[in-house]
């Protein structure tokens, strides 16, 4: 029987209060400590929401992250922030990572912010399971594709995987993370050179070999359907697809890996209906029959106002609970 779990990946939206506090601090109207205090409240609220919704892996929301790459850039003296660049086909922007020296993660600097990123230690592991804290990092392929300068991206891919993502993943694991979610939108949002798959495979081995926690590679903002044969060969525990961009029928098995189904639309302000989400999940199970099905969102929920995102989290938890009840698991 398929194991079913659910979680929310990516940065979670900040509250209106945190947005206001940040804006005020930027303009000298409130001390920076007010931002940290409000962020603590936001994080606690998000953790409580996930607990009450019944999510299996719980995220701290990564609300201190300026973009997906910044925690690694900030912890690597060989990286700098570059031009403000559009984040795929969204209206948000990131600062491109610029390689200016050796790629070596300052583990102490990275670990120092983990309390902020994964939340305070607690009893967040479900009894008898490995379910608990969720870790988030940029996928090495996306990082290497969006970094500058644009020379020998395949070599950069391996270096990012081995020298940045792997040590960061170990720090996350040491902090209690039991599932590492790697964001890889570039795999499906842009064409991938045929030879790059081999390099990606090797890069992911550098990350996953002996790591000892689950690793999910999540693709979004593009159609994963044509690439699923290659994606299913990657050395990870599960592959994520964005169902707002991917045809349900393309998920037909066999699925030797777990499948993360992005069945919440991270760009739509309409909350999904619980019944429709359950029906969608049942169809996925019929079509793909993966060993593990993770229910989540396609793109992350950060592009939504917090109140809308919170509603979607509740729907996700309720739909997962109902699906389990219907399946008797």
């Amino acid at each position: 029987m398929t194991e079913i779990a659910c979680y929310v990946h990516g940065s979670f939206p900040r509250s209106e209060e945190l947005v206001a506090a940040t804006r005020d601090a930027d303009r000298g109207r409130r001390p920076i400590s007010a931002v940290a205090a409000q962020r603590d409240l936001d994080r606690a609220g998000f953790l409580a929401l996930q607990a009450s919704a019944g999510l299996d892996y719980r995220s701290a929301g990564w609300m201190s992250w300026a973009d997906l790459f910044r925690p690694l850039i900030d912890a690597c003296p060989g990286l700098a922030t570059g031009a403000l660049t559009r984040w795929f086909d969204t209206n948000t922007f990131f600062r491109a990572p610029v390689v200016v020296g050796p790629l070596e993660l300052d583990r102490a600097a990275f670990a120092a912010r983990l309390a902020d990123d994964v939340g305070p230690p607690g009893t967040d592991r479900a009894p008898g399971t490995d379910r608990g804290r969720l870790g988030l990092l940029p996928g090495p392929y996306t990082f290497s594709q969006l970094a500058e300068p644009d020379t020998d991206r395949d070599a950069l891919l391996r270096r990012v995987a081995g020298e940045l993502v792997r040590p960061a993943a170990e720090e996350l694991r040491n902090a209690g993370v039991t599932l590492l979610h790697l964001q890889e939108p570039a795999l499906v949002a842009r064409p991938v050179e045929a030879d790059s798959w081999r390099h990606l495979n090797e890069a992911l081995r550098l990350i996953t070999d002996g790591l000892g926690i689950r690793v999910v590679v999540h693709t979004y903002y593009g159609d994963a359907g044509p690439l699923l044969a290659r994606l299913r060969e990657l050395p990870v525990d599960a592959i994520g697809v964005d169902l707002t961009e991917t045809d349900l029928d393309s998920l037909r098995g066999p699925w030797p890996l777990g499948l993360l189904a992005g069945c919440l639309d991270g760009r739509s302000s309409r909350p999904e209906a619980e019944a429709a989400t359950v029906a969608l999940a049942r169809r996925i199970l019929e079509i793909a029959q993966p060993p593990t099905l993770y229910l989540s969102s396609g793109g992350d929920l950060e592009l939504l106002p917090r109140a809308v995102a919170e509603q979607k989290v509740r729907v996700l938890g309720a739909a997962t609970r109902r699906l389990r009840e219907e399946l008797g698991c």
Partner: protein
Amino acid sequence: MLTPLLTHEIGSLAKPGWRVKAAAGRPCDEADIQAAESWGKRLDVPDYPRLVELLRRPARTGVPLTAAERVEVRNWSSRYGLRFFSSAGLDVIYDGEQQRSEMYAWAAAHATGFEFRGSVRSFDNKYYSKAAVTGPVGLRAPFHNDEYRLLHQAADKPVKVPVTGPYTLAAWSFDERPGAAVDLGEPLARRRARSREARRELVLDVAVNLVRPNLEALLGLGARLIQIDEPAGSTVPDEIGLMAEAFDACVHGLDATFTTHLCFSDYDLFFPAIGEMTGCRQYTVGFANDDSTELGVGDDARPGYRIIKRFRDLPGAPHLGLGVLDIHRDFIEPPELVRDRILHAADVFGGPERLQVVPDCGLRTRTWEVAHQKLVNMVAGVELARNALGGG
């Protein structure tokens, strides 16, 4: 109207603390009042001591500003904005959008069919208030008229009105109209076709029923240079033709010079589709964000400007508003760097006739101190370029 190397600004400027507090009904502190006084003097704002007196009064008397007085403070902020750009030496000016809440929210708040949903991230820790379109779009009332009347009368130089474009207004909104709902169980091809059609309908609805009537109102007041901002223009590469179509739907048959502003995009995506924007006489585009800060006029020295050849070759020979100031950094571009960026572009264009000079985008993320010095240096750089080109 678009003469060679004309300098102008793009749009927003940070709002002074005294303007923000007055608008919110909060008292100003001494630092705010000092800023109003020092900038008033520095920018030579006519009668600025009247503003200072007005800002001081609540603390002195215990009587807060009335609603009319708060509007007056906002108008002072516009006068300061005009002088900010004028004193920096720009040829065409506006007020840094001091009257508006923000380029998107201001338009959505004056439209019918929009409902605000909350804040979403734009970049870093910058957020904007995002609305959903829930029904037919329309113009509640022209929303730049009061602003234009004030600025046209107060400006000591020609003005350019920045107006948020229809594609950006649509792309920055959620679409909650009944026909836009999506069922993820549907085949992808059918979903995509329906989404494309819904988007096209929304963008053209915004163009024809919101932006165009607002432009017509501005023209009725005498506005003749209008910049239609499309920072979201390249969000979905397949929709750039739609952005172009919407631009022309806004301006077709109207008697004014219409320009557009594009920024922070992979500009290659715009070609060839923007060639269809027959109503656009100038593209103002941010380039400095991607450029080197080293001096030099050759292709290798100016990596941020690689794309300008494609703007040169657009049908109809439109002008290019050359972005020469990176608005996301406090780095003050030296005049010589501005000069070299202009000389490089003049070389590519075969002369300066089709070039004007602008910041990459609005300067609202910089302090007034930084923004003003950047603009002063931009103007100085233009003079250096004119001299180098033999027209000084």
